[in-house]
């Protein structure tokens, strides 16, 4: 049974029909691409998946469990982590604390423990430090653990956001244009990291990208969205040959 099942998904803001009759499903461990021109409704789908907006019709289920109406924080607990198109880091906190905040649900301790600073507090905090350093090492950020997130340059900030989403141990990781604003070799390096993460953490990834060449290189299956509607979906090689995609996308 598919990890993520989206049936007949649709939402309209006032008169605007932002997303209309979108169906797709993602299997466990897949690296699934969601592509389309700017303003096609990619981020809106992300916001519908994560409960930021409520869909007007359609269903979204993870491992068969419907998540419509759930709070964003509960959806994350069910296993759906995400990054944002414009970076949303905790800029006044250290890089390490950004990750430790994401680990919070796995290392809960009570208010009393933190007030009395019991040995349990120190033990858990140290374990969280070790765990967080592990995630930072994957993205090569371990040596910048103690600086403020706002002092990181653009590339490392993007990676930190992915690391933070990863730290919530999601089943499905939603990446919203992770390579946006990166130069070509930074992008290639990032894509390899994503593949490495998928294999090492055995995680399913849904990737938003508008760079067709990049997505088809890395994704096993892609879904092409145009003006909120499905244009095509399937294996990248087939989709690239689809006439509708070529005209809409490449503009011949």
């Amino acid at each position: 049974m598919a990890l993520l099942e989206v049936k007949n998904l649709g939402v309209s803001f006032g008169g605007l029909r932002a997303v209309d009759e979108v169906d797709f499903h993602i299997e466990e461990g897949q690296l699934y691409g969601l592509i389309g021109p700017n303003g096609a409704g990619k981020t809106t789908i992300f916001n519908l998946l994560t409960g930021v907006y409520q869909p007007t019709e359609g269903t979204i289920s993870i491992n068969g469990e419907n998540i419509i109406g759930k709070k964003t924080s509960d959806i994350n607990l069910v296993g759906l982590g995400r990054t944002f198109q414009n970076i949303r880091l905790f800029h006044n906190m250290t890089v390490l604390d950004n990750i430790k905040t994401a680990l919070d649900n796995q290392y809960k301790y009570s208010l009393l423990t933190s007030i009395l600073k019991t040995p349990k507090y120190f033990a858990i905090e140290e374990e969280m430090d070790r765990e967080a350093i592990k995630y930072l090492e994957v993205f090569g950020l371990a040596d910048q653990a103690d600086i403020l997130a706002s002092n990181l340059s653009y590339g490392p900030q993007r990676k930190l956001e992915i690391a933070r989403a990863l730290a919530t141990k999601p089943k499905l990781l939603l990446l919203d244009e992770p390579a946006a604003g990166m130069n070509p070799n930074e992008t290639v390096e990032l894509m390899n990291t994503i593949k490495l993460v998928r294999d090492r953490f055995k995680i399913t990834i849904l990737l938003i990208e508008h760079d067709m060449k990049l997505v088809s290189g890395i994704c096993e299956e892609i879904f092409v969205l145009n003006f909120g509607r499905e244009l095509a979906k399937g294996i990248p090689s087939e989709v690239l040959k689809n006439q509708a995609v070529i005209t809409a996308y490449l503009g011949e």
Partner: protein
Amino acid sequence: MTNVIEQLINGLRTGSIYALIALGYTMVYGIAKMINFAHGDIIMVGAYLLYVFIDIFKLPIILSVVLTIVMCSLIGVFIEKVAYKPLRKAAPLSVLITAIGVSFFLQNASLLIFSANPIKFESIIKVNAVHIGNVSIAGITIVTFIVTSIAMVLLTSFIKYTKTGYAMRAVSEDKGAAQLMGINVNRTISITFAIGSLLAAIAGILFLSQYQSLKPTMGALPGIKAFVAAVLGGIGSIPGAMLGGLALGVIESISKAYISSQLSDAIVFSVLILVLLVKPTGLLGKNFIEKV
């Protein structure tokens, strides 16, 4: 039944003053993104200026009114330049504290100059009451209502159609971007404060004509009530300020008349909280969906 109508008119009487003050509040907030706590005290300054021009310098009324409005606008611009401009890049909260400092300063300065004893002042607006059936509406209430409506219409069209109005809206959207587009942000904000203080001066004149008494702390409570009205109507929205002000006046008088005059403050603020719970950005505030 006439009692209900009378109480509603009483509500409009206070509400129209709140609305006029709220206009200045919401405009300064909408454009400079700042709660100008000292706005209430600029009303006091306007009232004292009018008193000085008419009772002490014995100038004719029209000249005194014009001078009061001009002086108040200049004072507003001066305050912005001295106290708020240096904090242009600071956190909004530090500007709020500075505004509180300015409000404190204005009150204590006028306390030193004019002493604490309240001063009586004969209203300059001699409009006799209008009688409909056995219900009468005081002249000053009608004048205030008309002036507030005109001010709102002028202000809205000024911001919508004039060049400076465009600049103001650009500054309120994004100061940085506006600067890049060649808008002199400092000049625009100064003009905003000038207009805001102008409105406060008019409110001061009408407030003084309605209640005919001056005191250094006379601006504090109306300032807070206008802030509540501006938020109730949707802070930043000019028609919202008008609606919020009138609504606040009516809620106050209905609660005092028919529920309990002792608990009226509690009732008024509870209504405000209920409204904000139903519509988190106030009655006419644009429902600001944070782009994720």
